[in-house]
C-alpha cells in the first residue's frame, strides 16, 4: 500500500515537473511587485496566496471556455522566487497528460485580467503576465476637444474687443466732424448778435486793411526791417 502511494506520488511530481518548468510548452511566467504597489500594506507571498492564484486561473478558464471542468488542481505552479515570480501551466483534465494550449490560456487571462488584478490588489504593471500583452486603457476623450472650447471663448472675447474699439473710434470721429460744423453755426449767430448789439454796423468794419490802432504806431521803429 505504502509503495503504491509512493509510486503514485512520484508519478505526480514527475508529471508536475514535466508540465511546469521554466520555458516549457504552454507555460507562462508571472511576476508580481507587491511592495511597489502596496508599500507598507504589502502582504507576504505564501501558500495561501498561491492557492488564490490557482483559483483565479481556474475561474478564468471556466469563464472563457464552454467546458466548465477546470479544477484548481489543474493549475500547476513552480519555480517560485523571492522576486515574487513563478511559472504556471494549466493541464487538461479531459485529455490525459496534456496542457491547455497557450492561446486559450492567454485569451482566458485577458478576458478576466481585471478580476485577477483586483483579487491581489495589483494592476497590469505590478502583476505582469509575461508574453501576455495587456490591453491598455483607451484615453478618455470628450466629443469636443477641450482646447477648441477655450480657443472659441478667447477668440470671441478678442473679436468683441476689436469691434467695440472700432465702433467707438468711428463714433468719436463722427462727433469730431459734427463739432466744427456746430461751432461754425454758433460763430455766425454771434456775429449777427454782436453787430446788432454793439451798434456798430458791420459794413464799416469791412475794410480790407483793417483798423489801425494809433496807440501802437510809435512802436513801428522797434520792428527790424525784413
Amino acid at each position, binding site marked *: 500500500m505504502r509503495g503504491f502511494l509512493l509510486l503514485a506520488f512520484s508519478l505526480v511530481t514527475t508529471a508536475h515537473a514535466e508540465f511546469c518548468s521554466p520555458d516549457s510548452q504552454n507555460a507562462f511566467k508571472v*511576476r508580481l511587485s507587491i511592495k511597489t504597489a502596496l508599500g507598507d500594506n504589502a502582504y507576504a507571498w505564501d501558500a495561501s496566496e498561491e492557492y488564490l492564484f490557482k483559483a483565479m486561473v481556474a475561474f478564468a478558464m471556466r469563464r472563457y471556455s464552454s467546458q466548465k471542468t477546470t479544477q484548481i488542481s489543474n493549475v500547476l505552479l513552480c519555480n517560485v522566487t523571492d522576486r515574487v515570480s513563478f511559472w504556471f501551466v494549466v493541464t487538461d483534465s479531459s485529455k490525459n497528460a496534456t496542457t491547455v494550449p497557450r492561446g486559450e490560456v492567454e485569451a482566458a487571462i485577458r478576458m478576466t485580467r481585471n478580476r485577477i488584478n483586483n483579487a491581489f490588489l495589483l494592476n497590469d504593471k505590478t502583476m505582469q503576465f509575461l508574453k501576455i500583452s495587456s490591453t491598455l486603457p483607451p484615453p478618455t476623450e470628450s466629443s469636443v476637444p477641450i482646447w477648441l472650447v477655450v480657443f472659441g471663448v478667447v477668440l470671441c472675447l478678442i473679436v468683441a474687443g476689436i469691434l467695440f474699439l472700432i465702433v467707438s473710434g468711428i463714433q468719436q470721429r463722427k462727433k469730431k466732424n459734427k463739432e466744427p460744423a456746430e461751432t461754425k453755426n454758433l460763430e455766425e449767430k454771434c456775429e449777427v448778435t454782436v453787430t446788432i448789439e454793439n451798434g456798430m454796423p458791420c459794413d464799416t468794419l469791412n475794410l480790407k486793411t483793417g483798423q489801425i490802432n494809433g496807440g501802437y504806431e510809435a512802436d513801428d521803429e522797434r520792428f527790424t526791417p525784413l
Partner: protein
Amino acid sequence: MEKSRPLWDNPLQFVFACISYAVGLGNVWRFPYLCQMYGGGGFLIPYLIMLIVEGMPLLFLELSVGQHMRQGSIGAWKTISPYLSGVGVASVVVSFFLSMYYNVINAWAFWYLFHSFQNPLPWAACPLNSNHTGYIEECEKASSTQYFWYRKTLNISPSIEENGSIQWEQAMCLILAWLTVYLCILRGTESTGKVVYLTASLPYLVLIIYLIKALTLHGAVNGLVYMFTPKLEQLANPKAWINAATQIFFSLGLGFGSLIAFASYNEPNNNCEKHAIIVSLINSTTSVFASIVTFSIYGFKATFNYENCLNKAMLLLTNAFDLEEGFLTADNLNHMKEQLMATHPNEYVELLPQIKNCSLEAELDTAVQGTGLAFIVYSEAIKNMEVSQLYSVLYFFMLLMLGIGSMLGNTAAILTPLTDSKFLSTHLPKEVISGIVCFINCIVGLTFTMEAGNYWFDIFNDYAATLSLLLIVLVEIIAVCYVYGLRRFEKDLHLMIGHKLSWYWKIMWAFASPLLIISLFIFYITDYILTGTLQYQAWDATQGHLVTKDYPSYALAVIGLLVASSTMCIPLGALAIFIKRRLKREHRSTVA
C-alpha cells in the same frame, strides 16, 4: 492746424512699454543657455561689462534720437541727414521680417495654453497605438514632450524640402495671435499704453510664483549649484565675451526702430537718460532672475530623470535575476552590479547593453536654448509637478505676455513711420493701416504653419536680423556722433533733459560702442565664411531625435535675400537721395 502727436499718458507707460518690449523670450530661453555654456556664475562678468560699455549707451542714444526728432525711424534719420533715410527704411524692413515670424511663437504659446486645461496634460503620456497594445513608436523613441512638440504641435516634416500642408490648428492659433496684437495696437498709444501695464508686470508675477515653487522642488539645488559655480577659465574664451555682447545687443532690441518709435511719443522734456538706465538694468536683472528659475527647474528635471534612470536599471536587474523587491537601492547598486557580474557573468553580459550608466552631471549638461527649452524642457518639468495644470497655464500665459509685449514694439516700429507719412495718414485712418499691416503679416506667417514651417522659422530666427541690425546700429551711432556731430547732439540733449551730458556717455558713443560693434560684425562675417555650408537640425521621426542636414540651394538664396534686402536699403537710400539732388540741381541749372 496740425494734429498734435499722440502722447503717453504718463512717463510710467513709456517705461513699461520699453520694459515690455526689451524683456522678452530671449531673457527666458537664451540667457540661461549662455550662462550654462560659458562658465555659469562667471558669465555675469562679461555680461555686466558689456551692459555698461554697449547696452546703456546705445539704448540712451536710440531713446534720445526718438524723443528729440519726435518721429518714427524713417523720419528721425531723415532729419539727421537726408542721406540716412535708408537706415530708417532698413529698420522698418527688419522689423517687418521679425514680426512675420515672431508671432508664430505666440501662436504656439496659445496652443499650449489651450491644451493646459486638460487632465492629464496631453504631453504627460504617450498616446496609444492603433491596436491599443502599446505606445506609438515615435513617442517611445523620443519622449512624450518631444512627441507632443514635434508631432502634435508642429507635425514636422523630415526635411525642409518637404513642405507639406498648412496645419489648420496652428493657422487658427496664428490668426488668433494676430487678432490679439491688432486689438492692442488698434488705437495707437491710447490702447498700447494700457496694455503694457499688463504685459510688463504679469510676467514678473508669474516668475516670482515659479521661483517660490521651483526652489521647493526636489533636486532644484543641484541645478542652482551647477549654474552658479563659476568656471572662471571660460573668461579666457573669446566666445564668452562675444556672446555676452551679442546677448545684450539683441536683448535690448536695438536697431529695430521700436525704441525710437516709443520715445517719439514722449513729452519733449522727458528724462530719457534716467529711463535708459532703468530699462537696461531691469532687462539684465530679469535675465538673471529668469535663469535662477530656469536652473532650479533644470535641477529638478535632471534629478527626476537621474532617479528614473536608476530605478529602471534596478528594475531590470531585479527582474533578470529574480531578486527580492527593494533589495537593490541607489546606494548599493554599483556594489551589487559587481557582485552579480562575478556570480552570473553570462546573464550579466547579456543585459549589459540595456543598462545605461546614470549620471546626474550628464543630465545637467544637456544645454538647450530656444523653442526647445521653452516648449520641451519646461513642459517636461511641469508635467512632473503636482497641480501641473495650474503651473502650465501660468507658464504659457507668461510666455504669451512676454511675446505680445515684444510684438507691440515690433509693430510700433513699422506703424509709426507709416502713420507719420502725410500721404498715408491723410488717406487712411490708423486703424485701417494697422489692420493692413497685421493682415499682410498674418498671410505671410501662414508659411510657418506648414509642416516644414519650423525650418523656415529657424532660418528667419537665425539670419533675418543678426547681421543687418549690427550694421544698422553701427551706421546710427556713426551718424549721430560724426555726421550730425556729437557737440550738436549734446546741446540738443542738454535742452531736453536739462543737465549736461556726463563724459561717460560721450566716450562710449564716440569710441567704445562703435569699436565693439565693428569687432562683432567682423567676427560674424568671418564665422559665416569659415563655416562654409550652412546646416540645420531636422527631426527624424524614425529615430526620435534631431539630425543635421545641409540647406538646399533655394533656402540659401532666401537667407541671402533676407540679409541683403535690409542691409542694401542703407546704401540704396543714400544713392537715391544723391541722384534726386543731382537731378534737382541739374533741373535748376537748366531752368536758371
